[in-house]
């Protein structure tokens, strides 16, 4: 197993790409870490699908408002200047292209930018989709944050997704524990890799043909 980035280091790398002043929606799971590591020099307004703009961090233990939760149903706070609104407005903000950046988890991403992050091929659990499809089609920039492979070593970056699609041709950039890849015409273009991984090794862990930028950077640990 190649030593990849920790989840927090991945989050730091994603955060570095989020411009000051952005309206951002962070998906459930790994992406929520991004909010913890964005530099204090940036003012970011976080959106939550259940009707919050200006969402702040979790409250101190025992404090907080039990009805004030994020999309993952975890308690959060509201920053000064924040606002509440209803669900239909929350999704207008998504579909209408008002959210600058979303960071989403993924089961698979294809070289065309197709995203599969809502269902696997298991028939034993009822399907659930939440707001993933609206967010994926609507945000101006769709960033995916995911491990490069599954826990049992199977690739998540694919020539074509085998799991059901959330949305087609929406992903702009993928951040894994091993690399940063742009989705460009013609497929995945590797921009950065962790130290100690060769292009051949990265290719062997990917189910799509990789191209490498002329100046592949080192992905900081």
């Amino acid at each position, binding site marked *: 197993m190649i030593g990849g980035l920790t989840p927090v280091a991945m989050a730091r790398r994603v955060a570095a790409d989020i411009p000051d002043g952005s309206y951002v929606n962070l998906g459930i799971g790994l992406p929520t870490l991004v909010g913890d590591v964005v530099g204090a020099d940036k003012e970011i307004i976080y959106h*939550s*699908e*259940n*009707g*919050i703009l200006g969402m702040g961090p979790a409250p101190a233990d025992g404090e907080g*408002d*039990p*009805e*004030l*939760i994020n999309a993952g*149903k975890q308690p959060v706070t*509201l920053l000064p200047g924040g606002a*509440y*609104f*209803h*669900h*239909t407005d*929350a*999704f207008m903000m*998504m*579909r209408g292209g008002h959210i600058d950046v979303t960071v989403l988890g993924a089961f698979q991403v294809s070289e065309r930018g*197709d995203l599969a992050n809502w*269902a696997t091929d298991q028939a*034993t*659990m*009822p*399907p*659930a*989709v*939440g*707001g*993933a*499809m*609206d967010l994926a*089609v*609507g945000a101006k920039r769709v960033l995916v944050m995911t491990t490069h492979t599954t826990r049992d070593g199977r690739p998540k970056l694919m020539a074509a997704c085998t799991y*059901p*699609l*959330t*949305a*087609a041709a929406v992903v702009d950039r993928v951040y894994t524990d091993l690399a940063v890849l742009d989705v460009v015409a013609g497929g995945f273009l590797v921009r950065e890799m962790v130290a100690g991984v060769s292009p051949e090794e990265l290719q062997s862990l990917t189910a799509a043909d990789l191209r490498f930028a002329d100046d592949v950077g080192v992905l900081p640990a």
Partner: protein
Amino acid sequence: MIDKRVDTLDDAVAGVADGSTVLVGGFGNSGVPVELVHALLEQGAGDLTVVTNNAGSGETDIAALIREGRVRKIICSYPRSAGSVWFEQFWRAGRIELELVPQGTLSERMRAAGAGLGGFFTPAGADSLLAEGKEVRVINGRKHVFEEPLPADVAFIKAARADRWGNLVYHSAARNFGPTMATAAALTVVQVREFVELGDLDPEVVVTPGIYVDRVVRVAA
């Protein structure tokens, strides 16, 4: 004189018929009209189609309705949650029908019903399994799927304060689906924690105008 206040939860749920389509507000445990749902359980209506974001958890509210076999079909975006055991058990046994709808589409379908529209085209889900059997049209170069309005017989929602005309304000993220659901049902029933006099709600911040509301009942916080 207009007075939409009712004295008891029994009065609030009176007349809900077997076979009704019932909208239930809430996102996770935030904004769920728990007491109204429990009153509906007591009232006894069955063969219900329940429209709500999640399928309940634990032994209360929607989970209890499912456990008692009152729900024929659930229309929601995310039926799975920690503790959604009754839904999962009924789903596996084929005792409940599930219509899975992307969250923004769920909200917008109710909005369309409340707004008197015949449906809408959305890019959300257009390339997914959830578009199967639906009309897909390319608009401005992008696939959109046609979604029908989702009207209901009854809506149960939770707000913070109401006056006797049924004007409502909400509390933090508990607002979620409430304002949209209030518009989409023939009978909109609201539980609040406080009644106020006409004129006490600042008209600049009334969220749901009373025209959408039929009954309000006070439930101690």
